């Protein structure tokens, strides 16, 4: 197409010039161009849309939470994941593609986008093993320094693909037997959640190779009270909430994973009213204030995926509930922004919309609609 494109472009310019000769308009002639994103604001939010039922092409809607306007979109593949560099220079989509759309050869790649122009500037092929699951934030993790990207695999044997973003290459694969998913716990460390209720931390060297691994002690009983597998990180501390409403904090910065004593979010009265945490992206945090946001509903056993009608705010330090926020529309995922005026986002899968609230007082601010089948929210910080 390139020769043709060039030719057409030339012809086009020619015509435009002719037209301009004749132009005596009060309105100036437009100069068509492609826009770029401005400097990211704290309340920008990245919404991952799996685009069911077609499912083979994902979409990320980049939305300004303040104006509730669409800033741009990027595409991905089958059940793709998303990661944003902390310096906002690059966006990564972790994609699975088939050579014939829905059939043929499977290829997994990390697609690298310029975060300002939203154009694809590179691609790194990884083993076609990435876990294919309804999108979750912790299937991918980026080290704070932006050097390494970790990709969770399942074949169903579990492992982690280490991608060297600086060298633009796949650095290697590290088995995490009995464990799953991946959290960044430092510039050269990731952590995974294990089937026995413990956590695993894995250290890598500067080439991305395994340096050592430490298995923590079990801190919850998956058979009695499993924790949701999408914890929120405050620094190198992972906060989990359990099906029955216990909070587990695990410090991942030390020699080995160390869990702090669990604490309950439910009073006996709450329990009598059968309040429970639930949804998809169930827990969020305000890093500065150390506040935890947990999505709640009323239901019995095994209602852990019921849409949430309230968000309860807790102080992670005092372990006390600060506020209850009523959601205008039942949500499936929530996120808190990290600016001076933190915002709470409520994502409704069925209504395909994003609602914004003031995190400070729970005031409803507005809604953005038309998000396809959105599952996961990512912040700009």
């Amino acid at each position: 197409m390139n020769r043709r494109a060039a030719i057409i472009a030339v012809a086009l310019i020619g015509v435009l010039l002719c037209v301009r000769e004749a132009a005596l308009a009060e309105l100036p002639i437009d100069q068509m161009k492609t826009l770029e994103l401005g400097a990211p604001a704290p309340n920008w939010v990245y919404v991952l849309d799996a685009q069911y039922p077609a499912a083979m092409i994902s979409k990320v809607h980049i939305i300004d939470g303040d104006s509730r306007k669409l800033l741009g979109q990027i595409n991905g593949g089958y059940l793709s994941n998303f990661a944003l560099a902390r310096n906002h220079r690059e966006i990564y989509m972790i994609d699975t593609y088939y050579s014939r759309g829905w059939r043929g050869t499977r290829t997994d790649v990390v697609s690298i986008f310029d975060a300002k122009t939203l154009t694809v500037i590179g691609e790194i092929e990884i083993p076609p093993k990435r876990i294919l699951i309804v999108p979750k934030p912790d299937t991918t993790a980026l080290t704070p320094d932006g050097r390494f990207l970790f990709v969770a695999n399942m074949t169903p044997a579990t492992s982690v693909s280490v991608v060297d973003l600086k060298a633009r290459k796949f650095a290697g694969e590290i088995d995490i037997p009995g464990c799953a998913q991946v959290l960044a716990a430092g510039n050269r460390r990731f952590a995974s959640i294990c089937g026995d209720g413990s956590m695993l931390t894995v250290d890598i060297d500067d080439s991305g190779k395994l340096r050592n691994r430490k298995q923590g002690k079990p801190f919850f009983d998956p058979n009695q009270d499993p924790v949701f597998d999408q914890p929120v990180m405050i620094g190198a501390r992972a906060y989990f909430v359990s099906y029955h409403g216990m909070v587990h904090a695990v410090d991942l910065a030390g020699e080995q994973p160390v869990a702090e004593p669990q604490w309950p979010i439910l009073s006996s009265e709450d329990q009598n009213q059968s309040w429970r945490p639930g949804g998809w992206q169930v827990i969020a945090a305000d890093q500065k204030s150390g506040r935890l946001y947990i999505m709640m509903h009323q239901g019995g056993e095994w209602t852990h995926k019921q849409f949430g009608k309230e968000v309860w705010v807790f102080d992670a330090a005092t372990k006390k509930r600060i506020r209850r926020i009523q959601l205008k529309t039942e949500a499936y995922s929530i996120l808190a922004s990290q600016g001076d005026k933190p915002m709470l986002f409520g994502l409704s899968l069925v209504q395909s919309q994003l609602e914004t609230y003031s995190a400070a007082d729970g005031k409803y601010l507005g809604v953005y609609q038309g998000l396809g089948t959105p599952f996961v929210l990512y912040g700009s910080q």
Partner: protein
Amino acid sequence: MEMDKLVERMTRAVARRTSRRSFLAWVGRVVLGATMFPLLPVDRVAAAANNPGPNANLNDDTACDYWKYCAIDGFLCSCCGGGSHDCPPGAIPSPTSWVGTCHHPGDGKDYIVSYRDCCGKTPCGRCICGNTIGDMPVYRPQLDSDLVWCFGAPNMVYHCSTAEIVGVK
């Protein structure tokens, strides 16, 4: 509007689709030398299964309350050109699956049911039927209903779900 209902069913579905929490899959993992996940004894699987008991429907296998579907999770192949234990034309049964236990109100027996996905086509999109009883996070993959459980199939594209009687408890 139907489209809207469909989309709603779809989207609700996605929240709790596919994976088969299976001791068969576990066996698969054993053979693969990847058996680091604690095996759940069959009776625990049974305990985790949703048992409609007396309310279960014995006749209509395109309905979500069909007795054999007591813990199925996905689009019913019976509505997609397949059957309660048959893949629609062109879709391939996943060799890996999850097993549940369903009570048959007629003969009073508990049957072991293997929930096997049909793979190789994009989601069928009809008769979504899902429940989250016994559904566990991904660190217990054999109980995780959000995974695409087409391991061992020609490709990882999920089409629909079946329920295959493999024995009596």
